[in-house]
């Protein structure tokens, strides 16, 4: 019954080469010397120059950028999950009155271009003293990323059968109990996805943090890398190296969360039976 799947593997491997190839070339380029870069742009490095990473680390100011990125990402992620999770719960399980209107509102808000509110927001942030603070940009990220997270988590929470909830209520569970024992475990993949997406968005975000975080010692890696690339455009090898360093934290985070994600989905599948 599961014969002739080999062609699927072929297609998948082709897609994998498409996805992975350019990244691998990038990593290879990070390990080459500059002359080797022009003569051998696509292949493996002859003698891996591991010190490029150290050079890039110091020259691009990565330590500071990394610390700032972690602060901003963690703050954003926690806030978005809490804010969005509460709202998603209200909209899916608590039958929020006016739900349709709220959903439309959230969709509209997600579609507003950042540039629409950028300058007045800048005025406001300066007045209340949040300009050039990491907390300030985190709050902006909360506002920008929570609507999508809410809608995403809600679409996962909707699928949970009401019978589970009723059973828990009959058992005497309060609101928090229902959330922790029924909703969260079943919507866990959704929550995780929302957390991951908001963390990634905050980590890679560029335009907002550029405008609202002015001091170099507070800037995250996305700005550090961009500035480095603009300034050292002739030393492409170091740019590759610093780019690779920048990718690593998110990659590790994804790999860690990814396993939990799979477990969550698997247990949901089991519970459904």
């Amino acid at each position, binding site marked *: 019954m599961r014969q002739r799947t080999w062609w699927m593997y072929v297609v998948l491997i082709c897609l994998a080469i498409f996805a992975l190839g*350019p990244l691998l070339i990038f990593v290879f380029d990070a390990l080459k010397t500059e002359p080797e870069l022009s003569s051998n742009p696509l292949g493996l490095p002859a003698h891996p120059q591991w010190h490029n990473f150290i050079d890039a680390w110091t020259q691009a100011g990565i330590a500071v950028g990394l610390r700032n990125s972690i602060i901003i990402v963690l703050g954003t992620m926690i806030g978005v999950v809490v804010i969005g999770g509460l709202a998603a719960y209200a909209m899916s399980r608590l039958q929020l009155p006016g739900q349709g209107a709220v959903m439309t509102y959230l969709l509209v808000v997600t579609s507003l271009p950042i540039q629409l509110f950028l300058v007045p927001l800048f005025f406001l942030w300066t007045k209340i003293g949040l300009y050039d603070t990491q907390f300030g940009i985190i709050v902006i990220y909360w506002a920008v990323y929570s609507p999508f997270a809410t809608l995403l988590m809600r679409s996962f929470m909707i699928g949970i059968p009401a019978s589970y909830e009723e059973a828990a209520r009959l058992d005497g569970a309060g609101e928090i109990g229902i959330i922790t024992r029924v909703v969260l475990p079943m919507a866990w993949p959704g929550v995780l996805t929302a957390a991951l997406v908001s963390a990634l968005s905050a980590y890679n975000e560029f335009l907002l943090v550029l405008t609202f975080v002015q001091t170099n010692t507070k800037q995250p890696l996305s700005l550090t890398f961009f500035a480095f690339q603009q300034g050292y455009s002739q030393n492409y090898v170091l740019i590759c190296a610093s780019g690779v360093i*920048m990718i690593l934290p998110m990659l590790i985070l994804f790999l860690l969360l990814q396993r939990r994600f799979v477990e969550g989905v698997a247990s949901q599948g089991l519970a459904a039976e």
Partner: protein
Amino acid sequence: MAAIGHVSGLRRRRARIAWLCMIPLILVNLLVIVGPAVQSIYYSFTSWDGLSSAHWVGLANYVDLVQDPQFVQGLLHNIEWTIIFLIVPMVMGLFGAYLLTMIKRGRALFRVIFFLPYVVASVVVAAIWQRLLAPHHGFASLFKINFLGDTHTALWSVAFINNWAWWGFLLVVFLAAMQGVNPSLYEAAELDGAGHWAKFVSVTLPAIRPTFMFLALMTIIWSFLVFDYIYILTQGGPAGSTDMLSTVLYRAAFSEQQAGYGAAIGVVMAVISGIVIAAFRIFQRVRRWDV
């Protein structure tokens, strides 16, 4: 009597808790987005240059806008972009996710690989592909076309690069949705003699419809907001061939010191998104689907 009173009291209490849960979202939303957006609407009716005080000009900005070739060109490019992104990454994501549900081994590994490009920051992705598509010493030199420099290919090239970093995300979300599909539905379809395509159309697609519609809607909306890759790779050039509404807005507000005009563009962008969403909601209600 007492039972009914208890039920409606419960409903009211639930409604109260519900609204309480919504407070953080609403608060942060009003502060950061709605308040400033309303101010921008005000500025769109002025000739504000972003620095000094604003002078009221009524609808002048909007009249200029409609006649501005840059604006029209940007709008057309956004539409082109939307069409591209409703097709290419969606098809790739659906197809890839479906294949992954069908195979036995390596699913986790493939999923990680496909998602990787999405994890990479746009600045880095741009750096990677700029190198690869460089006309003389890049991989693309084989084709003898300057992908990012030629006005005929620039937009598609930027879309290609953005797609490379985007389709993996769609795949992962589709995969999660597909994995929630009851396997017995597939077995039943197979017993009826359905092949892969039929299974996909009759079982998978309907089952993931909420996710699919949601992502399609978000794709349309985000296609009108696209900015990062255009800005980093071509700044709207060459010769305006990759100019999008957001780059036109950006240039007006920050290079040409026409913040009022830029605000008007922003308002128009929001209105377009609003129309799309409204159409979607009406479509939903007519077909009685729930996202």
